């Protein structure tokens, strides 16, 4: 049977909105997060951070802090390895504690372990650090100028990453263009703002380090911690508890694990470290602000002939995941629309501000905002309907992008058409009352990165299933990380489907480097496809062994047997049946544990040029969004009324969770579009590091969301799956900006699209019209 016909089969477990495996625990409050855990003799730890954006450390005096009752340890750079770490091996530029100078307000200087939280705060105040304040680099646009202070002495002109890529024949494309347009847009710094603060509890036993952590990747933590302390990976155990959201901000070491590990070792006691909300903002690793210039050449029908993107991104003080962010910013742009000629220039610069990293959609959403606005402007120049220009340029399946990404399934054209139909585009466009507008944009994203973050030949995912000895349950052991998105549920569904078992009797042990097999974790929207592929293989191995046992028990050939939803049956004789449980129990009695295992390594992907690996993926999701907004002409208030989102994400394992991802992504996209922005004073200190002034949307701000799906099948994914979690963040900002333009005839060229910006644009438009009269 080919995969394509399987796809159309009636599945027993997948394709169904089964309840979340952790739902009851979470809604009753029984679920334990790292911050809820307590261990005997546990100490509390806090990190002292820099009050200056850029300063030389002259001296650190911890003696007063050490004298305070209840203080068990105080550590500085002298007490920890000086080996630099980071998450991108190309630029390891962080120390556990600053040695010579601090580089942003919030940079880590020292840490304490105390008998309680209160003593920690008191002890931090007693650490005396003498600083020589240095001029700070706060503006990314001038950071590269000659004579600017250097954030890191070894990086000239504060250039952290520089990218210059060119594909096809740009000169020819622009020479033959019917129309060329250049636009400039500015993105803003946003922060992931997971509800659960980062925390880590570290403890030692006989030279083995165990850390409970709110992390998106136990594997990378294990790797980097072992590396930092010169330990064997086998002597480092990282366990994830329940995680209250990550969105990219919990992928890399936070500093809490390093400091906590040393404090725990020095005191011989478990140490719980955590960030409060303001410290989370200071640690940051949120979305980079990008300054984006886009120039496109099009023919008379609006078909894109070539495109040049020229970006600068504010990286903050450290690299974090920023090299990938920088590449992603340009590399993912040619996914949704087909064109052959593409040039991408990027500078990621260091500034004395908190480091930026990966946030849902990684580097892609801001460039997508810019490009979708730019495309609407081109459509207007050529008098083409915005939906139509996108359909004309929409990528087709089985194509290759100019930067060598192979696209298998791609239903973006259908997504656009469906979103148009659902939203009533044809009836609304140009016909809505004043103040009301409709906009469209598209998105796409990788279903897992083609290459891991550091160089290794490890499989990307692996899984193990053990059927319980009496056959009544099965436990999936996976390194995949559920951070709220529902991977534990989806992977359990996949395991049950592959085994022919039932979801209700699935148990799961996940994201513990000691008990579960390796997996790179929750980032780059990889787990449904990659972890799922490993789980499917493990389930099929169980099924094979089970049917072999059943064949022996039933005295029938194995090819005549199959198993579905916990029942073994004969293909030729419907009177024959045997339960999964009975066969599994018998298997254990006769042959020992019934275990299946699987692993997944993506095929070799991508081209040969520098940076070719970033953005490669076995499969890409696609989507189209249409939104309708109402603008209050006098105040600039933006009321997003409805959003129609149509996705091509391959086979859907759990439609309920999928639509939840679309809603969640839209919530974040809405916040980034209209409200969210990390703001600084002129000394580089965040002025809104709290949830009152960093305005995430509330339930009342959410529009009506209409989430639709296009039937599609991805040959590279198990059962034809692709991602949904991040691609759905991509279109939103551009979609709203285009709807605002449609409503009011003003183009907001910078994010967020605040009420005041809309008000000002309308005011300036009125004044201009007055002047022309």
């Amino acid at each position, binding site marked *: 049977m080919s995969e394509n016909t399987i796809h159309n089969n009636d599945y027993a477990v997948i394709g169904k909105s089964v309840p979340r495996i952790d739902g009851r625990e979470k809604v009753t409050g029984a679920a334990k997060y790292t911050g809820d855990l307590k261990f005997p003799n546990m100490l509390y730890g806090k990190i002292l951070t820099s009050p200056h954006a850029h300063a030389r450390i002259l001296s650190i005096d911890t003696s007063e802090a050490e004298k305070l009752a209840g203080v068990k340890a105080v550590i500085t750079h002298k007490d920890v390895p000086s080996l630099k770490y980071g998450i991108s091996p190309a630029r390891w530029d962080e120390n556990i504690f600053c040695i010579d100078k601090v580089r942003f307000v919030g940079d880590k200087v020292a840490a304490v372990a105390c008998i309680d939280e*209160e003593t920690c*705060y008191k002890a931090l105040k007693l650490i005396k650090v003498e600083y020589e304040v240095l001029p700070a680099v706060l503006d990314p646009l001038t950071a590269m100028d000659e004579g600017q202070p250097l954030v890191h002495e070894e990086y000239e002109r504060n250039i952290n990453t520089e990218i210059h890529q060119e594909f096809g024949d740009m000169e020819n494309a622009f020479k033959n263009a019917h129309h060329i347009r250049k636009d400039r847009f500015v993105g803003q710094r946003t922060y992931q703002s997971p509800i659960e603060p980062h925390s880590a509890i570290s403890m030692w036993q006989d030279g083995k380090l165990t850390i409970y952590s709110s992390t998106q990747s136990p594997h990378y933590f294990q790797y980097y911690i072992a590396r930092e302390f010169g330990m064997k990976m086998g002597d480092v155990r990282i366990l994830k508890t329940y995680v209250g959201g990550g969105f990219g901000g919990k992928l890399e070491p936070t500093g809490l694990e390093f400091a906590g590990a040393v404090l725990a070792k020095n005191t011989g006691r478990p140490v719980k470290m955590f960030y*409060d909300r303001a410290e989370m903002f200071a640690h940051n690793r949120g979305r980079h602000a990008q300054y984006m210039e886009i120039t496109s050449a099009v023919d008379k029908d609006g078909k894109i002939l070539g495109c040049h993107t020229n970006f600068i991104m504010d990286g903050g003080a450290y690299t974090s995941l920023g090299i990938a962010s920088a590449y992603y910013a340009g590399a993912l742009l040619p996914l949704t629309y087909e064109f052959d000629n593409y040039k991408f220039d990027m500078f990621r610069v260091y500034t004395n501000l908190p480091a930026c990293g990966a946030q849902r959609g990684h580097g892609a959403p801001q460039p997508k905002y810019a490009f979708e606005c730019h495309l609407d402007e081109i459509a207007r120049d050529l008098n083409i309907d915005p939906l139509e220009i996108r359909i004309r340029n929409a990528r087709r399946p089985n194509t290759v992008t100019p930067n060598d990404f192979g696209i298998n399934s791609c239903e973006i054209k259908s997504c656009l058409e469906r979103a148009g139909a659902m939203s009533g585009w044809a009836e609304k466009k140009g016909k809505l009352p004043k103040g009301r507008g409709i906009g469209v944009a598209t998105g796409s994203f990788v279903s897992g990165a083609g290459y891991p973050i550091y160089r290794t030949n490890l499989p990307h995912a692996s899984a193990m299933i053990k059927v319980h000895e009496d056959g009544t349950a099965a436990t999936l052991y996976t390194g995949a990380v559920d951070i709220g998105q529902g991977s534990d549920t989806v992977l359990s569904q996949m395991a049950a489907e592959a085994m022919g078992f039932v979801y209700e009797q699935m148990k799961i042990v996940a994201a513990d480097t000691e008990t579960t097999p390796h997996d790179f974790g929750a980032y780059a929207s990889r787990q449904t496809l990659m972890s799922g592929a490993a789980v499917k293989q493990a389930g099929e191995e169980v099924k094979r062994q089970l049917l072999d046992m059943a064949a022996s028990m039933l005295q029938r050939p194995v090819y005549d047997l199959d198993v579905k939803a916990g029942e073994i049956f004969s293909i030729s004789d419907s009177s024959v049946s045997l339960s999964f449980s009975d066969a599994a129990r018998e298997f254990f009695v006769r042959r020992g544990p019934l275990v299946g295992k699987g692993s997944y390594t993506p095929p070799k992907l991508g081209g040969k040029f520098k940076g070719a690996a970033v953005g490669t993926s076995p499969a890409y999701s696609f989507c189209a969004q249409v939104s309708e907004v109402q603008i209050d002409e006098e105040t600039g208030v933006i*009321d997003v009324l409805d959003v129609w989102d149509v996705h091509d994400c391959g086979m859907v394992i759990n439609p309920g969770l999928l639509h939840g991802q679309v809603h969640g992504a839209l919530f974040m996209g809405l916040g980034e579009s209209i409200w969210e922005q990390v703001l600084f004073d002129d000394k580089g200190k965040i002025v809104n590091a709290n949830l*009152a002034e960093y305005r995430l*949307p*509330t339930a009342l701000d959410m529009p009506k969301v209409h989430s639709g799906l296009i039937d599609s099948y991805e040959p590279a994914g198990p059962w034809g799956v692709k991602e949904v979690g991040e691609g759905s963040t991509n279109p939103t900002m551009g979609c709203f900006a285009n709807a605002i333009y449609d409503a009011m005839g003003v183009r907001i060229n910078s994010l967020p699209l605040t009420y*005041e910006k809309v*008000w000002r644009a309308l*005011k300036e438009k009125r004044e201009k019209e007055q002047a022309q009269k």
Partner: protein
Amino acid sequence: MYTPDFDYYAPQTVQEVCSLLTQFGSKAKILSGGTDLMVKLKHGTIDYEVLISLKELNELKGITYQEGKGVVVGARTTHNDLVNSDILNEKYLSISEAAHHMAGNQIRNIGTIGGNIVNAVPSADLPPIFIALGAIVTILGPEGERTVPLEDFFTGPGKTVLAQNEIVTYITIPDQPTTGSNYIKFGLRRSGALAVVGVASSVTMEGNIIKDARIALGAVAPVPMRAKNAEAALIGKEYTDELLEQAGVAASQECSPISDIRGSAEYRRDMVRVFTKRSLKASITKGHSGEHLETEHGK
């Protein structure tokens, strides 16, 4: 963050409160809800050795109508008590609506009107509507009771006419012939946002003529302020949309907003114009129920 140590008193009588305040002086602070106080204590931005809770003073809790006096609101009345009060819902729904738009439900359950007023935050939501309705504050001190119009109560951000050993006990809305009243909070999201501009108004109509009008503005001056020029532009005139626009312009000129992370002074000033106009229109046409609970920003 941690809650620092302090001595805690929960006196049984208001007189006891005043004597404790006299005894401890500036080391003591009244605790009435604590939604702002406890946060600041935890953040270490303020420091008090003694907190005096009003929680035993049940006589300060609740809303009554007293013949000849008006609606009397005890200082310990919570925001949700204002939201759910039958008396206010009937007489001044505008107050219930203003309270409904404050903060989140958890805060509304515990925060009190006394705390909201005494805290004297320029962007507070309750002062404008109470000022527009001519509310009187009753203050108790060791020397006895005194009353002050709410509009004269504030002296600066975080500052009021209260002496160190005085407390607010009641806020009274006197009986009045007003036709309608209304408060529009303009925040940057639909819930849980501080007011960028708050505009309250009350209007007394005689036929089509505006006989009297009071306009109170929040978040656009160091203290909640009356927009008296705007009021003067209205009184005695026939109600038209153009007239309300003129009042809005006057109000925008007499306020003194600052620029901060929530909005520029220029934007705030123009929003005062817009929302003064909209608040007045609602007061004139919709009685004391602004009805803007259901719609956006008074539109």
